[in-house]
């Protein structure tokens, strides 16, 4: 008995070249080797080529005087500032058009998305026609249309479209009154902040009380009263510390007031109209994703139209709407780079355009520009993952 060989019945290890783990390791090592070699090859070529063409490298150029003007800047800027400053000028202009575009596209998109589902036949048709027309036309074409065909063909300042002698639209842009704050306006802002904090506290308290006792509280009305009332009282108490500077026609153009460049105006309009179609479709899909049973259940519980929308439909629809909505917002940020085509001074036009042409370090400048957009994308997708994890349907 004892001289029987001790046979193991577990299968032996496969030969190393057949072992999936070893194969994976070898393959990955090879892959990384190829990628690194390729990268080094490119870097080597680039360094060689730059040396040959006498292109300067490094970020030293950022401290040199720029010497060119920019038509719109949110921070102090003129020819004597540095190239580094042009980066921030462009970045802020990009952010400005992105924020304006996002706000207007959201408004338009939600209205059109709801309208497309309207029981009113005509309204639904108009929304459908709007969506189908404008989302199938390239954005750049729409920007050109609003800028070259509409914006530049608006009447001259003397014949501008006027809205009650306060807002003027002409081929030099849009002119609106500029608010000028005087001493004591800080009080109003302070009151507003206090109101916001109070609203948050009240909303939490009301929520907890409703959970505990079932007694509802008119949070919306109280919050509105607080948000309007507190700053309003502070405004009166401080003696109305706010005046408006009206745009006035002097010579060939308007002076004073806030002027919106025609480029900014056309770009925002095109972004809003184009992105609005995608947001409208997102909103429609979100509302349709709430099953009809939910509506019926809400009716059966005796909820009226407004609380049904507010408590049942909208929270469930938003869960579906928000992820694609943020990717649309991201698209607005990326698409705002088309500004370069009509000369709006955004990051791409000012920094990757003029600054690059004047200084020459292509790799550094393009890398900085791309890094900005990458930062936006990555931070928004991180935020999105967090939101999705938080809002995920908790099933039992």
């Amino acid at each position, binding site marked *: 008995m004892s001289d029987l060989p001790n046979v193991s019945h577990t299968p032996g290890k496969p030969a190393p070249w057949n072992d999936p783990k070893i194969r994976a390791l070898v393959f*990955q090592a090879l892959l990384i080797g190829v990628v690194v070699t390729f990268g080094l090859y490119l870097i080597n070529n680039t360094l060689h080529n730059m040396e040959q063409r006498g292109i300067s490298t490094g970020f030293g150029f950022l401290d040199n005087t720029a010497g060119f003007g920019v038509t719109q800047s949110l921070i102090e800027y003129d020819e004597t500032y540095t190239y580094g400053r042009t980066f921030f000028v462009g970045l802020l202009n990009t952010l400005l058009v992105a924020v304006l575009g996002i706000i207007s596209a959201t408004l338009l998109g939600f209205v059109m998305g709801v309208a497309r589902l309207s029981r*009113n036949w*005509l*309204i639904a048709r108009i929304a459908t026609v709007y969506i189908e027309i404008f989302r199938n036309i390239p954005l750049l074409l729409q920007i050109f249309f609003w800028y070259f065909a509409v914006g530049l063909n608006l009447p001259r300042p003397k014949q501008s479209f006027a809205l009650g002698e306060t807002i003027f639209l002409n081929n030099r842009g849009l002119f609106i009154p500029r608010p000028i704050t005087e001493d004591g306006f800080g009080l109003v802002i302070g009151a507003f902040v206090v109101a916001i904090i109070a609203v948050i506290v009240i909303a939490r308290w009301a929520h907890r009380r409703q959970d505990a006792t079932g007694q509802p509280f008119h949070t919306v009305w109280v919050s509105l009263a607080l948000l309007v009332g507190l700053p309003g009282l502070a405004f009166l108490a401080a003696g109305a510390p706010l005046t408006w500077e009206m745009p006035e026609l002097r010579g060939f153009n308007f002076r004073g007031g806030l002027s919106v460049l025609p480029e900014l105006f056309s770009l925002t309009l095109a972004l809003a109209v184009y992105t609005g179609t995608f947001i409208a479709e997102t909103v429609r899909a979100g509302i349709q994703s709430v099953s009809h049973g939910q509506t019926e259940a809400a009716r059966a519980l005796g909820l009226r139209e407004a609380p049904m929308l507010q408590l049942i439909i909208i929270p469930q629809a938003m869960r579906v709407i928000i992820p694609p909505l943020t990717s649309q917002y991201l698209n607005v940020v990326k698409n705002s780079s*088309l500004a370069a085509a009509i000369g709006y001074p955004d990051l791409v036009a000012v920094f*990757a355009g003029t600054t690059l042409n004047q200084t020459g370090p292509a790799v550094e400048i393009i890398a900085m520009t791309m890094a900005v957009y990458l930062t936006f994308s*990555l931070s928004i997708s991180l935020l999105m993952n967090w939101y999705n994890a938080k809002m995920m349907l908790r099933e039992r």
Partner: protein
Amino acid sequence: MSTFERGPDLPPPVTQVGVIGWLRRNLFSSWLYSFLTLLALYLVWIVVPPVINWALLDASWSGTAREDCTSDGACWVFVSVRFNQFMYGFYPEAQQWRVNIIYGTLFLLMTPLFLKAFPWKTALGGFIIFVYPFIAYGLLDGAWFGLEVVETTRWGGLSLTLILAGVGCVAALPLGIILALGRRATDMPAAKSLCVIFIEFWRGVPLITVLFMSSVMLPLFLPEGVQFDKLMRALIGITLFQSAYMAEVIRGGLQAIPKGQYEAADALGLGYWKKTGLIVLPQAMKIVIPGIVNTFIALIKDTTLVLIIGLFELLGMIQNALNDPNWLGYATEGYAFTALTFWIICFSLSRYSMRIERKLHTGH
């Protein structure tokens, strides 16, 4: 003795059926809706008739010069005079038959793909994707076939738009498949992270910076003496950009294949490549066709951006024509024509994609 006689049924009230009923139900069901309907009618009234008047009724259609546009409406003469340029760019007129042949044969080759009974779809599809682009390039450029050489700088117009979008999409497909497979390779963390970085990088930057990069930086990357022309550089940028989006679409398809299919393939003893090539990809690719068509639509719209780096696709040709001192001030006509062209292409493609989606949605 009187018997009860049932009278004839009364017709439903006039206000509930027919045109009036429809109007009441769909347009005037409440005060708010009536108000909205009137508002919408007013909106339609101020927009539609002027547009129709401008574009059709008052428009000038025929002629050869600016002076032929006498009416108040649109001057379509501008478009008809330049139509050849809008389609072919600066391609010499005597050689334009080459462009026609390419699009004509492509159309003929594509037709059998839409016929149900055609048996060699895969082979034909492979031919169109992998072989045809080279034939087309040879014919367009001319050098390989001993024809007059037409440099890529003279290509333009709608034909260039379609070349950019078509080549970008076809070249991005294999790259996208590899990236999508790599992103799902959980047992190879290094390969997976490389794919994730690649995909997220290209998806995170705007196409315009990609085009800037390929036109400014690409020449620096290449060894001395090697040069790509502008079109080639744009195509490389577009392909890399598009492959990231393609990869995400295909990944969606791979995720939709039930786990049982993978396990069944494993149980049959298939290795990774056989499992992927014979079981997973054929099913996944079928699901993602609508998604691929949608990215293709987005790409067609995005090709207009190449005008910023100096390639004259359709919109670029229009911009070019608008700068002609003889034809100043016809921007609206030019843009309307371009918009209509793009709209027809994109809208029909999106309908096609929706049709496939419905066909695939067999309702499990």
